[in-house]
């Protein structure tokens, strides 16, 4: 559509121009024609005719005067007049001045006639006398005849010129009209041109406005971008700097524009690149630069430069674009830090710790120095976490980190490996004593109680130490050994440190092995029950057995329960063992019954782990039902620690069991954390005095004697029986007897023995004691009655 308009435009324009040109040409032509026709008839034509007529009159008058007024006119004058008149005749038909007359009249015919006549009368005039008669009239007639001829020429000229004039006028009018038309054409053409001019102007304006808008838009975009954008020209003048760039680099573009830039080039350290780019036209790869402004922090920029090439291919400017990547760099550094540091304490994490250990070992190897690793475990962290909550636990961890850090040199590495485990790398150690001192110092730091959430908590630490090159040269090896050492420190009760020894490793290997083997011990029939008899002091009769588990390891031989029970307690094995022991004991009791023996109650040890992991009452009752053993023939020995944890569930379980007349004994009494209130709360009917108290009897430790006495008294007042464990000597025996202890158990009587070997206890009513021990007791042996 637009193209059509354009074509129309140009067509109109061409037409107008054509009309214009044609009109001009035509007008000029017409004017020329008109001019020539005007030229044709000029005033000179009239003048010449008039002059001819006038001279004729004068000649005629001179003739009349010469002849009529005798002598007034001289003959010479007459001749002159005649000649003058004659001279006027050729003018009318010769030369350019005669054109009008010749063309418009019959002058060319008439005048030669007149000249011929003149020639005829010339001699007559020359010979004329003043008193002439007939010659005078002849000449006069001839002259007079000229007048109408001239008159005719004159009139013809007048008429023709009149019409010519009028036609000329008409032509002029017509010409005028046409001229007007052509002028209008010119005007129209002019108008079209003006219209087109306006249209072009409008278009140019619009284009300029659009270009301006586009430029403004581009400028806005450039200024809105969170990038520093600037351009320099070949003379290194700053020609462009966007708002962000000006602000970031503190450039005032208005004052600095088009000037050289001693201050205010965005990236002065990269200026040298501009010259290179201007010459080569190649853009370098982006560069990271550090821009330090005087009053603000350092910021890191990623700067890239590009050449701006004009249409001729020459590099005109260099554009620099900078991105502020400080945040990104900071974030990267932070992530890196987070990847290698613990979030809570900001200590190096396991990753970084391993890395540092590796490099420390390399250094130590080169310099032949010792590197020590200290594994640290917070002894009561779990208690703090459970009691006071995780937030308190976190505070404590931070506090612990501070304490440890304060004992170390800046070059030592303190890392948090996770949970409440920390580790230290110490290099450049001269001897082991240094490490020892360090461990002592750290442990001492924890001697002071920590103030956590307003409460004071004592938390001790356990440390395990391994050193290179003695305990290994590989990081993993050293770590493992430090771990063993830590385990040993914890096994020793905590609040201490242990240096690694091979034995630890051996021991832990051993323990691990045991655990594995224990799993199959039941199936492999490696487990047996031994029974240790208990004797009632009042009638010295057998009153019960304690079933003790024995493990006959194929490789290691007989392993005491104190070795493998703790291992079992750390995992579910304890349940299996517990069930096994109970079941086997009950089965044995039934077997004895089936043999006709009336066995005394059997006592089974229950572990706190069992109570924690399963419904013990259910298990016991189930086993009794399975085996068919009477509940009153069963005694369950629990340690004081059971009563500490989850007392409600335990209480309920014990009540259930006691309700069936199953005996509940409190084992190892006096060694644990128990409070006397438990004795009332829990359905206990027997207390077993720990063997440490019994042993102290023969040492004549006054204090302990008093305690034993007190225990017996207390138990009796609570209507509980007292059993003394670990009785080995006569003195203990008699002392306990004197104190009123109810039952005794120990080597003095017998070791724990397999069922087959208990015949002598079961079948005979007496106590088969060793004669060496009980020399003068023999006679006191009585037949054991069945009643307890």
């Amino acid at each position, binding site marked *: 559509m637009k193209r059509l308009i354009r074509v129309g435009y140009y067509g109109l324009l061409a037409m107008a121009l054509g009309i214009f040109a044609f009109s001009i040409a035509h007008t000029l032509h017409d004017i020329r024609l008109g001019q020539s026709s005007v030229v044709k008839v000029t005033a*000179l034509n009239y003048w010449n005719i008039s002059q001819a007529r006038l001279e004729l009159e004068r000649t005629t008058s001179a003739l009349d005067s010469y002849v009529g007024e005798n002598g007034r006119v001289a003959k010479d004058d007459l001749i002159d007049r005649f000649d*003058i008149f*004659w*001279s006027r005749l*050729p003018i009318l038909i*010769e*030369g*350019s*001045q005669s054109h009008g007359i010749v063309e418009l009249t019959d002058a060319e015919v008439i005048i030669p006639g007149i000249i011929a006549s003149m020639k005829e009368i010339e001699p007559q005039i020359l010979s004329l006398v003043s008193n002439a008669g007939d010659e005078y009239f002849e000449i006069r007639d001839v002259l007079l005849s000229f007048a109408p001829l001239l008159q005719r020429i004159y009139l013809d000229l007048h008429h023709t010129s009149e019409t010519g004039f009028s036609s000329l006028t008409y032509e002029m009018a017509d010409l005028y009209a046409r001229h007007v038309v052509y002028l209008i054409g010119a005007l129209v053409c002019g108008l079209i041109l003006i219209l087109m001019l306006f249209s072009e102007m409008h278009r140019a304006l619009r284009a300029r406005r659009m270009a301006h808008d586009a430029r403004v838009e581009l400028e806005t975009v450039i200024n809105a971008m969170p990038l520093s954008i600037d351009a320099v020209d070949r003379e290194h003048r700053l020609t462009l700097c966007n708002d962000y760039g000006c602000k970031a680099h503190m450039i005032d573009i208005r004052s600095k524009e088009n000037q050289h830039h001693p201050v205010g080039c965005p990236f002065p350290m990269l200026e040298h690149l501009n010259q290179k780019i201007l010459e080569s036209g190649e853009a370098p790869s982006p560069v990271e630069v550090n821009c330090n402004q005087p009053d603000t922090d350092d910021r890191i920029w990623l700067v890239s430069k590009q050449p701006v090439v004009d249409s001729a291919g020459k590099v005109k400017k260099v554009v620099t674009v900078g991105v502020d990547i400080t945040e990104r760099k900071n974030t990267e550094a932070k992530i890196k830090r987070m990847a290698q540091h613990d979030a809570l304490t900001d200590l190096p994490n396991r990753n970084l710790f391993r890395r540092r250990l590796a490099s420390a070992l390399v250094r130590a190897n080169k310099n032949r120095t010792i590197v020590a690793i200290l594994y640290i475990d917070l002894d009561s962290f779990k208690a703090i976490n459970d009691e006071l909550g995780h937030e308190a636990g976190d505070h404590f961890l931070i506090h612990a980190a501070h304490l440890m850090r304060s004992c170390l040199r800046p070059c030592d590495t303190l890392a948090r490996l996770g949970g409440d485990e920390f580790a230290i790398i110490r290099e450049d150690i001269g001897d082991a004593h240094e490490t020892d001192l360090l461990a002592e110092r750290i442990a001492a730091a924890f001697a002071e109680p920590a103030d956590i959430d307003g409460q004071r908590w004592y938390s001790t630490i356990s440390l395990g130490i391994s050193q290179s090159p003695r305990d290994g040269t590989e990081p993993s090896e050293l770590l493992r050994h430090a771990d063993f050492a830590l385990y040993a420190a914890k096994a020793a009760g905590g609040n201490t440190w242990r240096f690694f020894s091979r034995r630890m490793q051996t021991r832990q290997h051993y323990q691990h092995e045991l655990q594995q083997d224990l799993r199959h011990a039941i199936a492999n029939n490696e487990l047996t029950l031994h029974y240790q008899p208990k004797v009632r002091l009042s009638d010295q009769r057998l009153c019960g057995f304690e079933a003790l588990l024995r493990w006959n390891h194929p490789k290691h031989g007989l392993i005491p329960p104190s070795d493998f029970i703790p291992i079992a307690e750390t995992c579910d094995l304890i349940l299996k063992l517990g069930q096994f022991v109970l079941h086997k004991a009950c089965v044995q009791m039934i077997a004895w019954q089936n043999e006709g023996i009336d066995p005394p109650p059997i006592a089974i040890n229950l572990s706190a782990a069992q109570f924690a992991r399963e419904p013990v009452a259910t298990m016991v009752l189930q086993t009794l039902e399975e085996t068919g053993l009477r509940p009153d023939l069963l005694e369950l020995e629990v340690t004081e620690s059971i009563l500490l944890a989850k007392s409600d569930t335990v209480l309920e379980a014990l009540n259930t069991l006691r309700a069936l007349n199953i005996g509940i004994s409190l084992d190892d009494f006096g060694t644990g954390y128990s409070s006397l209130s438990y004795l009332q709360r829990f359905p206990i009917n027997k207390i077993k005095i720990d063997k440490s108290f019994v042993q102290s009897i023969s040492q004549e430790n006054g204090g302990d004697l008093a305690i034993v006495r007190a225990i017996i008294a207390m138990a009796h007042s609570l209507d509980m029986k007292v059993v003394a464990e670990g009785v080995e000597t006569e003195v203990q025996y008699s002392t306990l007897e004197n104190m009123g202890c109810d039952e005794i158990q120990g080597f003095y009587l017998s070791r724990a023995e397999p069922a087959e070997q208990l015949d002598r206890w079961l079948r005979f009513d007496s106590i088969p004691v060793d004669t060496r021990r009980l020399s003068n007791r023999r006679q006191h042996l009585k037949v054991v009655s069945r009643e307890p």
Partner: protein
Amino acid sequence: MRYVLLLSALALFASVPASTDAGMPQPTDETLLTVTGKIRETNAEGRLEFDRSLLMQLGLSKLTPSTPWTDGERAFMGVPFASLLDAIGATGTIVRAVAANDYVVDIPISNLREANAFLAMSMDGTQLRLRDKGPLWIIYPWSQRPELNRIELHGYAVWQLQSLHIE
């Protein structure tokens, strides 16, 4: 007495050349042209009279123009007006030309000089008579200088010239 007679005779002698002046003799023949006005030379009372021979003494030359009153080119013999003006010592600006038929026109001297005006005395070898627009006809070199062929200048081409008055 004798000295007074001698002195007056000398004075007489002296005046005689004064009346005839430098090279402007008196006409011997019929006067063709009378010049009056601001001129240096005179040979009669306050005026300069030329006969044919006097004019011819000013130096004849030839001019062959076509004229607006004749057909074709004609050969004219005559005196260049500039020579005439120099000879008579004209100092004015306007020349009033009067012709035998009482035609009068004022011609600027500058025009006469600049347009190379020519005082024609004969045409095609024949002396110009009154009836031939003679005896003196001011013509211009129209053929050589066609720009002079303008109607308004035709009036300067005075024929049957009788007198010039320099103002």
